[in-house]
């Protein structure tokens, strides 16, 4: 395993040092417990939207801390949910009195740790609402599993709800907006290669030269099915078909299309996939009115892509378009 790192145990801490150096005006990074805060402290009357999860998915979540998105992020060790003390520290530092919305990706560890943190914070007098995002259609049978995973939809959720909070929407309003998004966003991913976790030192799974891992998660968990390698058109279809069938998305709808690199995918390939997805959606008369393309929720050095489709309406479009200023998403200022 070759990585640009020092002590594997310090990899997250070392990266946080680098982030705080790279964005001194935007972020305040605290250690022990590790939290990434929006510089400038809580804003009067503004709901604090907070998220967190295992590291290794950068820029998620710390790269989305800033104006118009997250008030704070809690980075866990690589692929491991953070702990309640990080979350309560983030809540403590961010709650202006308007309350806190916790955005939690649906993994057992994340849910349990955020649950504990919410209890502790409420006991301290904070108003806390939690929204659990589970947009991954690769996990089909949710009564026999830990439920669908939270993946690409998280990025869109954090932007739209983060902006709503910045514009003064109250805690109930933010929570309702978030629940609505969770209900109408769907994603699926595919891996061409596995990530290598620093403390493991070898790839999380092994794919033959002619295999794809379809429905892969973002933690190097193997996916739903191992299928023969196919060309870009078929790869995109194998992601888009289950996504569209699931909600389902109907002809005439307006959507946001998010084509995501899972880490090590060259942009040539990512744009190839995006172009095909746009064409396939047009063929089905689904109108793409907003798009996002890039590495926004990754799995270390995994090669692969994911697609996310979110149903749009006027309110969501307005919050999406409004200014955002974070390390990884920035426009309008």
């Amino acid at each position: 395993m070759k990585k640009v790192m020092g002590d594997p145990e310090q990899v997250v801490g070392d990266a946080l040092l680098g982030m705080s150096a790279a964005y001194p005006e935007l972020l305040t990074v605290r250690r022990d417990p590790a939290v990434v805060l929006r510089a400038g402290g809580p804003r009067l009357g503004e709901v604090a939207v907070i998220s967190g999860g295992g590291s290794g998915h950068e820029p998620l979540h710390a790269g989305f801390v800033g104006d118009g998105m997250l008030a704070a992020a809690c980075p866990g060790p690589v692929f491991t949910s953070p702990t309640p003390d990080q979350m309560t520290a983030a809540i403590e530092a961010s709650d202006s009195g308007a309350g806190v919305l916790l955005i939690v990706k649906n993994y057992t560890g994340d849910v349990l740790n955020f649950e504990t943190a919410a209890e502790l914070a409420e006991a301290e007098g904070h108003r806390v609402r939690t929204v659990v995002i589970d947009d991954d259609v690769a996990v089909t049978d949710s009564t026999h599993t830990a439920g669908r995973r939270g993946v690409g939809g998280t990025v869109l959720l954090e932007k739209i709800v983060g902006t709503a909070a910045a514009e003064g929407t109250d805690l109930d309003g933010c929570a309702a907006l978030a629940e609505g998004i969770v209900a109408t966003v769907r994603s699926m991913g595919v891996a061409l290669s596995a990530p290598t976790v620093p403390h493991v030192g070898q790839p999380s799974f092994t794919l033959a030269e002619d295999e794809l891992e379809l429905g892969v998660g973002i933690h190097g968990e193997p996916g739903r099915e191992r299928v023969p390698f196919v060309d870009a058109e078929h790869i995109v279809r194998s992601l888009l078909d289950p996504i569209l069938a699931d909600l389902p998305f109907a002809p005439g709808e307006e959507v946001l299309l998010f084509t995501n690199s899972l880490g090590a995918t060259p942009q040539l390939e990512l744009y190839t996939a995006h172009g095909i997805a746009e064409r396939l959606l047009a063929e089905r008369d689904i109108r793409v009115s907003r798009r996002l393309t890039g590495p926004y929720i990754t799995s270390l050095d995994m090669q692969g892509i994911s697609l996310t489709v979110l149903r749009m309406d006027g309110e969501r479009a307005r919050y999406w378009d409004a200014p955002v200023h974070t390390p990884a998403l920035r426009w309008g200022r």
Partner: protein
Amino acid sequence: MACTGEDVRAALYRVVETVREHRDELVELDRVIGDGDHGENLRRGFDAWAAAPTGESPAEVLKQLATTLISKVGGAAGPLYGTAFLRASTAVRDLAELDAAAVVAALRAGLDGVVARGKAEPGDKTMVDALAPAVTAAESAVTVSEALEAAARAAAEGAEATRDLVARKGRASYLGERSAGHIDPGARSTALILRALLP
């Protein structure tokens, strides 16, 4: 043999050793059907405890371990093991020494805590499949050693038996049928921890 706070701490030091020794094995089990961090998560948590253990009575020792695990382990295992030790601590109240009945009560409280938090049933291929048979096996024991011996043996069997199961909880559940054929890392770590409690 009765069991003082000192004894509990000594037992937990053995657990720390075991977790260190088996870190790579647990990582490997989790790599195959999960995300490859279970061994590292537990190592981080138990090492953090070993660096600064406090408390006198069994309950105090267990409680401090529980809060350390909750704040250092993360993932699914952190809250689950944390809750288990927290409930165990509550179960032994202010006893200065634990007898077999207290040990069984602690084990049962731990199991109840895991089930309350994680909602797993036996057969879901989780740590419950090691812990639940351990509690049952310990119940008829007369001495602390017998209770722990029986628990460890049953947990080992239970962990081994998870190999044939299809996971319905935790990360391995995403694999569906493909999770069969591999031991559950959390069940394995439960068996290892229970075994290490015995001198």
